[in-house]
């Protein structure tokens, strides 16, 4: 049934305009604006994320290198998909990393056995993850609330434990799976012994990059990143369409009042299962992209902490909002990859301009929060965000926006969900 959805998505032309709908690509003006915003951010990310000249002390904070940009995009997709389940239906899955992991394994096997082209790999990832989530969802959705969460968690932890140990012949266990020159690939011909197999898309290699240099600034435009970026835009577009579709409304209805839905002649289960499978396929897509960008997979990406991470991303950004999950994913990945690399010598070089005593004091105060202490900073930020911005980062953004534009009445599209959450608390 989900396949059918996607077909319709591509085939259906925007319908004749009606009062409140219309706009481009079947989106309302606001939604289209949001899509354009995400598109601009994606296209110019290599520039936006590298605000500091490469040689400067602040260059440590630059995030515009291929690996991290790819991760922003991929985990953004993962979180968008998770949000379709959690944000709309309220079902909190604690096992979504399993679908990401299964997708990754499927993707790498496709590259090992089929071809190095990433498109079949990604398709296989999505399909396999979709099938797996269909099974898990079918069973887990027999329960709701915390019972549902624990069921999904149990499935994910079983997947992890088996992948790490008993299934080592399929998963590579502890050392994971990588591509090898000796893989028995059907298409794409034999690689010369010693050649490194690389993921490609019709001749383009994922790690190909073009460096743009403006004075002191360097911006890396990476092929893999832009391919992932296009996928993100498609995924984001689909998620907007789902949010605004009658199906999306049904999902929100499931979250709001299952009893009424039942007595309106609708069984919630097919809706929740469809949402579960769609979000599982998003996770598979993210997993497939992960191996397409970086051709290896390890079982840790199915551990419960990885499932927890996507939950945190979604809540942190703003559950039920469109753009929130992407922000949350970026936020967490930024801290994981940037703050963890600041070491004592980096700090010392930042505060080098200060007199010695003061420098030492500053370093001593900041040091516990960076480098190996990055978890501490992340934990503190989780608490601060949830205490002061109950609607997540999106709410923070709209708060800022209202400060700057006092005249504008009401918030944008994105405030709705955030405001709604807040309203429910009161």
């Amino acid at each position, binding site marked *: 049934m989900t396949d059918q959805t996607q077909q319709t998505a591509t085939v259906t032309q925007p319908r004749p305009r009606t009062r409140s709908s219309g706009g481009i690509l079947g989106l309302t003006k606001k939604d289209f604006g949001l899509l354009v915003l995400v598109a601009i951010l994606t296209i110019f990310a290599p520039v936006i994320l590298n605000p500091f000249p490469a040689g400067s002390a602040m260059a440590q904070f630059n995030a515009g290198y291929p690996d991290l940009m790819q991760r922003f995009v991929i985990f953004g997709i993962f979180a968008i998909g998770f949000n379709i389940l959690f944000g709309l239906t309220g079902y909190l899955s604690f096992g979504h990393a399993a679908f990401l992991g299964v997708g990754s394994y499927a993707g790498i096997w496709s590259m090992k056995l089929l071809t190095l082209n990433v498109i079949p790999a990604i398709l296989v990832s999505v399909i396999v993850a979709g099938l797996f989530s269909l099974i898990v969802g079918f069973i887990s959705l027999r329960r709701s609330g915390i019972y549902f969460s624990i069921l999904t968690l149990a499935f994910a932890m079983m997947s992890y434990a088996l992948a790490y*140990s008993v299934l080592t012949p399929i998963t590579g266990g502890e050392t994971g799976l990588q591509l090898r020159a000796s893989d028995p690939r059907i298409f794409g011909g034999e690689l010369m012994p010693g050649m490194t197999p690389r993921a490609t898309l019709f001749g383009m290699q994922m790690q190909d990059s073009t460096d743009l240099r403006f004075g002191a600034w360097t911006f890396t435009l990476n092929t893999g990143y832009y391919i992932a970026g296009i996928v993100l835009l498609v995924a984001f577009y689909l998620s907007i369409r789902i949010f605004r579709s009658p199906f999306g409304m049904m999902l929100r209805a499931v979250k709001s009042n299952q009893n009424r839905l039942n007595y309106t002649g609708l069984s919630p289960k097919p809706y929740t299962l469809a949402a579960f499978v769609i979000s599982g396929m998003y996770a598979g897509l993210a997993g497939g992209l992960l191996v397409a960008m970086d051709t290896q997979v390890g079982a840790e990406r199915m551990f419960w902490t990885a499932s927890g991470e996507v939950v945190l991303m979604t809540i942190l950004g703003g559950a039920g909002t469109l753009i929130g999950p992407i922000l949350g994913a970026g936020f967490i990945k930024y801290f994981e990859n940037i703050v963890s690399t600041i070491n004592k010598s980096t700090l010392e070089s930042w505060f080098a301009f200060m007199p010695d005593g003061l420098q030492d004091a500053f370093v001593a105060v900041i040091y516990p929060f960076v480098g190996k*202490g990055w978890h*501490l900073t992340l934990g503190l*930020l989780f608490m601060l965000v949830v205490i002061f911005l109950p609607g997540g980062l999106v709410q923070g953004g709209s708060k800022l926006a209202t400060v700057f534009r006092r005249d504008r009445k009401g918030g944008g599209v994105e405030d709705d969900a955030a405001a709604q959450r807040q309203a429910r608390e009161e």
Partner: protein
Amino acid sequence: MDAIILQILNGLDKGSAYALIALGLTLIFGTLGVVNFAHGALFMLGAFCAVTFSSLLSFGFVPEDAGSTSVGGFSFGALQRETPYVVHWFGENAGNAIIDWAVPLSILFAIPVMIAIGVIMERGLIKHFYKRPHADQILVTFGLAIVLQEVIKYFYGANPIPTPAPDAFVGSFDFGAMLGFDPGSIVYPYWRLVYFFFAAIIIAAVFAFLQFTTFGMVVRAGMADRETVTLLGIDIDKRFTIMFGLAAAVAGLAGVMYTPINSPNYHMGMDFLVLSFVVVVVGGMGSLPGAVLAGFLLGIIEAFASMTEVLDVLPGINQIVIYLVAIIVLLTRPRGLMGRKGVMEE
């Protein structure tokens, strides 16, 4: 036969730890409706109460006549041998005995500390999250758990810290001889037996407290129907604060006594967190007996799944048995073993 008895003992012992943690978690779930991801961290803090107390007892000074210490021909700054003040004050025998009994003694230290931590946590943070969605509770308590364990890591490092039991409890008790088996066939470490009895006492105390005191009766009523109790003019909030303190103390004591079994480290809370949630949910939300029952049940099942005889038939079953049992229980009994309707179901 003796192998089975041994595994039952092992299961009861594992189950004691699960049950204690799940008990505290259920108190918080059931009374306050809060998904507390920091509960594992409370267990960990309890264990580090023992570590801290031991090191406080061993805290000492470098005797003036010690001279410079050289090890293997090198002299390292960090390797000065200290005489503990306790030994200095109470003499060689009494002082060393006190140090030896550090873990049991740290119960006295841990109870007030853990209650204080629990009360501060509830008043300072959790209180404001009662009416927030569960998702927000997860985020804030998970953040708190990370902060707590990183603080411990900052002071104690990531490596496990050995915290031995008193010498009196080193060694094993020979059940075999007692039950008429061959001597030596069923031996069980003293400290693990201590842990089991300790857990039984704590569990019994918590139940007695809730069952037989008026305070407990009000809390139980509050668990069932918070609004009515509030309407009766009872300040349920204050009682819930105390319950949080109590739950923290239960988790902390479970941690204190666990240290001789496995050396504590800063992430032990996270190791137990997922498992304790599984135990609570399998037991059934809002049910204290359910949590305890599920703790022991899963402990015993885990013990049996690790037997060679079982593993030969089902390789890898020891990896997944807990989760498998959880799935089966939740599919056959919708609200776990003894869950109440409507608790955390939306």
